[in-house]
Every structure is written in structure tokens, then in C-alpha cells.
């Protein structure tokens, strides 16, 4: 598995901060890592998000093949809580503001 890098956006600083403050939709994004087993990632997704086997596997394959997967979307506070839990399981997880917000 190849480690993928997070995307960065080049915007004026004040515009970026304002947009992010106003964004009410945040994404939990899991990035690929070269170590964690597929079965482990599937199990973590099922446990943390309550996914069924098929959904968890779909997201795992997305991470593996495309380098990232948006596994949850919603309010920032909950997104941060999920990211913390995923990091507890040593998955590379970040939050991203919805670009349309």
C-alpha cells in the first residue's frame, strides 16, 4: 500500500479561515497507509461507524486503490471525534471542510 498525501488548497488566508468557520459540513477522510491490513481496516470501519461488511469493504478498497475515502460527513465536532477514534486505531484520518460550503 502506498501512502497518499492530503490535498492542500491555495486560497487567501482570510478567505480560507472565513469559509472554514462557516462550513457546517465536514468530511472524515481516511488516507492510505502501507502497513495496516485490509481485514483490520474493515473491522475498524465496522466498529467505529457501524458499517455493514459490504460498506466497510467498499471504503477500505477506496482507500487502498484511490489513496483516500470519505467515510463520514457531518458537523465538525462529530467529525473530530471520529478522526480521534480512527487515529487511536492508527489509521491516517483527517477532517476536511466541504468545498461547496
Amino acid at each position: 500500500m502506498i501512502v497518499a498525501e492530503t490535498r492542500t488548497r491555495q486560497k487567501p488566508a482570510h478567505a480560507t479561515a472565513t469559509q472554514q468557520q462557516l462550513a457546517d459540513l465536514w468530511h472524515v477522510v481516511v488516507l492510505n497507509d502501507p502497513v495496516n491490513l485490509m481485514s483490520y481496516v474493515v473491522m475498524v470501519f465496522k466498529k467505529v461507524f457501524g458499517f455493514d461488511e459490504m460498506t466497510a469493504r467498499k471504503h477500505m478498497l477506496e482507500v487502498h486503490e484511490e489513496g483516500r475515502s470519505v467515510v463520514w460527513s457531518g458537523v465538525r465536532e462529530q467529525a473530530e471525534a471520529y478522526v480521534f477514534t480512527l487515529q487511536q486505531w492508527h489509521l491516517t484520518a483527517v477532517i476536511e471542510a466541504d468545498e461547496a460550503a
Partner: protein
Amino acid sequence: MKRVEVKLNLEAVAPLLDVIKDAADDLRPILAVTAPVPDHDEEFAAGWTRELLEGQNSDIGVFLGLFGSDFFLTGVVPLDPTNSEAILRACSAVRLRLRAKHLEPLGDEALESNEVPHDDMPETQRKAFAAYVFLATLQELIVQHLDPTVME
């Protein structure tokens, strides 16, 4: 998950414990994964990192506790609902550290496919790779017992 007693090959596993313990020691002050903390102030970031580190060290403590004097007498490690998730996480952390410290030069494709030049590897790297594979096997075993529906 019921309690499972796994009998390991002492001759094969015991020599790996040094490199495993070494990686675990490296992880005391640092996180196995350095993912970004959500954008907040320094106090938030410090608290976030501190809590993750406390959890990581706790999990690794549970994992290393499997290899006490009983293990060296019997070769058996007990897995049950009270320790299995901690051991799973600890295996992940240690594997991440083993890759970062010893195995990165081998390349991720080689690591994933197990096509590594065993005979040409320095002893430490060879042990690190064997530990990396052993911990993966342990994880697979636990995942299967925790959730038999997970397909590989």
C-alpha cells in the same frame, strides 16, 4: 469473542521479542502515525496528542504483558475480550514503527507481497521483518475471532 489460547512457536517468536520491545520503547514518546490534528489552538493539539499517546502506551503495555514468564514456560498467549482490541492496536503501532525504523528501504510492494531478499538482509532487518509478519498474523487471528464475517 471467547477466550482463546494461542500456542506460539517459542523458538521462532522469542528471538523477535527484542526487536519488538525496541520498537515499543521508541513509541513511548511518539505516535506511530503522525496524522494532522484538526486545526485548533496549541492547547487542543497538545491534549489531542497526549491522549493518543496515553492510549498507545497503554495498549502496548497490554501487548507486552503477553510475553511474561508464563509465555516462556508454555509458549501460550491468552486472547480474550478484555485484551484483544488493545493488542490489535498495539500490533498496528509496532508494525508501523518497524516499517519506519527498519523496513522502509525494502519497499512497500515487497513488504506486502513478502518478496524480500531474506538472505541478503542484515540480521536486525531480518528479525524486524519476521516480527512484522508475526504481528500481522496475530492481528489476522484476532480479527477473525472478533468478527468472523470480515473477509480478507
